[in-house]
């Protein structure tokens, strides 16, 4: 792999991506088109996030990669190895030791700091896409702040189901201007998006980068009489007993017995190491 440049991409490409990132930070929530490259992993598998991370990494950085909140999911392992190989940087599974965290579908439970950058992998960056399939139309709608269609959709959910039937990739409005797709994180994570860390979003196949600068207002769309509610499984973690973390449901046996465990593996491990034990867990050795 030594034939490749630091972090795989050539410097010109990184500059192009950095320009897009700066523009994205200057216009929070706006989707900046960028000339996404073909990466050695498939489109839809994090190529946008990987390109943003590659353009952001310096040799002194420590990288953490999670998928579904976990460091050991196969695609997270694969991306982490990619950067270990092509950038030779340090990697970690500990949220607080990482300077750059690339994520798919989750925001870590531990609060991030001003020294950290959270890079999201984004499949479909356009929050209006499933209401209007044409990019030419949705770009116009953003330009004109024409978000009525989204509100009608949420209203129709309520009239049909009695609640807003969006559980993940729940749309947000950034700094009172752009409606943005937070990527397919569960809506449980939405309130965390007002944070001290920089949040960068990369969509490789769709050739878009967008960003939320630190301490930017991020409001989940709702109605006064149907306020937004972050939700999760109503259980404590079976391993560490945490009641404030997002949980995965695991089927234990043929009888369909289940347990609930933290999706954020680092959060769960650090709690157990600190002596917290859930109902089905054992004390950490």
């Amino acid at each position, binding site marked *: 792999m030594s034939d490749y440049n630091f972090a795989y991409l050539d410097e010109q490409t990184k500059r192009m991506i950095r320009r897009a990132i700066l523009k994205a930070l200057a216009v929070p929530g706006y989707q900046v088109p960028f000339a996404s490259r073909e990466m050695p992993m498939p*489109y839809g598998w994090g190529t946008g996030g990987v390109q943003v991370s590659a353009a952001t990494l310096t040799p002194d950085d420590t990288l953490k990669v999670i998928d579904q909140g976990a460091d050991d999911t196969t695609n997270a392992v694969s991306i982490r190895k990619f950067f270990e190989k092509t950038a030779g940087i340090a990697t970690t599974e500990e949220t607080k030791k990482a300077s750059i965290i690339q994520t798919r579908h989750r925001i870590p439970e531990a609060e991030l700091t001003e020294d950290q950058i959270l890079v999201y992998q984004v499949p479909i960056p356009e929050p209006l896409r499933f209401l209007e399939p044409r990019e030419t139309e949705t770009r116009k709608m953003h330009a004109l702040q024409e978000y009525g269609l989204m509100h009608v959709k949420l209203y129709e959910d309520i009239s049909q189901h*009695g609640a807003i039937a969006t*559980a993940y990739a729940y749309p947000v409005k950034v700094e009172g201007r752009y409606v943005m797709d937070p990527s397919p994180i569960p809506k449980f994570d939405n309130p965390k998006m007002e944070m001290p860390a920089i949040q960068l979003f990369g969509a490789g196949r769709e050739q878009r980068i967008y960003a939320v600068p630190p301490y930017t207002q991020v409001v989940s769309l709702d109605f006064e009489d149907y306020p937004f509610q972050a939700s999760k499984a109503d259980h404590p973690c079976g391993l560490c007993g945490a009641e404030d973390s997002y949980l995965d*449901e695991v089927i234990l046996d043929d009888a369909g017995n289940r347990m609930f*465990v933290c999706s954020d593996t680092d959060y769960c491990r650090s709690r157990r190491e600190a002596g917290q034990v859930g109902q089905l867990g054992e004390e950490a050795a």
Partner: protein
Amino acid sequence: MYVAVKGGERAIENAHTWLAEERRGDKEVSELSIAQIREQLSLAVNRVMAEGSLFDPDLAALAIKQARGDLIEAIFLIRAYRTTLPRFGCSQPVETGEMSCDRRISATFKDAPGGQVLGPTFDYTHRLLDFKLAAEGDVAEAPVAETRTQATPHITGFLQGEGIIEQEPASNAVPGDLTREPMSFPAGRAVRLQSLTRGDEGFLLGMAYSTQRGYARNHAFVGELRIGTVPVEMEIPELGFAIEIGEVELTECETVNQFKGSKTVPPQFTRGYGLVFGQSERKSIAMALVDRALRWEELGEDNSGAPAQDEEFVLSHADNIQATGFLEHIKLPHYVDFQSELELVRKLRREAAELAETLAAKEAAE
């Protein structure tokens, strides 16, 4: 006790080792060489070069070997490699009129300067399995005609001379580069053609076929189809003039299509254009048909709402590397999203059941 599944790293490594073993197959059978693939599976090599956007038969053959014959996977390997190559500049436009043709046919004129040259085509073969091939028999030598030294003029050139086909004015405008600029719409014809020439053959075939069946029919004649090699020239700044740096094999298809004319333009034929690396006949004809269908607006035709007329639809979905990546990504874990949907559906069902109960109780009371 439940232990979260660990060991993704080892699982990946083992999967890769197994994959390599499967790729090799039975070791009693001799291994394929790159040269064998390049020489004997040349149409697969051509497709990989065309959709990989890189003219290098050896690399394409290597990619096919590595991909176990999965051509989309091979195209992906080539694309990922290609994007890392430095760019020195761009070549002069290739002059397909000076192509040294292996094949050249016209469906519009019985004969024309340069003649009809069938070349190595499947066209009039009977599709009967040739069991002799299973015995690895030798092939008969094909008779060789005298090499034609003069250029073979384009058929559309004759129509153009008569003014009966739309003119294609030459332009020195720098065309866009879809590998360096994000796609935006309207894309313009140059970018459209770039997208089509690297687009998925199957997708283009389906799109082109749909125009023939009436979804934006434009009645195409194959004015000319030619396959052969052309020199590639590049201007070297230090020299101040262009020199030949190599040659590529191309398939070019020009269709001649109807056009009713308008208030300002008398009736004349219009064109569709296909140009593809290698011997890629089906692809180049499909490309020409789709190109022509996408030109409805500039030619003042009606938009009949057909998929093949919809630039954003066609160009956004023609790339098989984008398509296959996104399609296959749904294999990746989605437990977090699924969990949130589970919670939501359970909640909605609970509420619906409660509502039904209340209504039933109310009815019973009445």
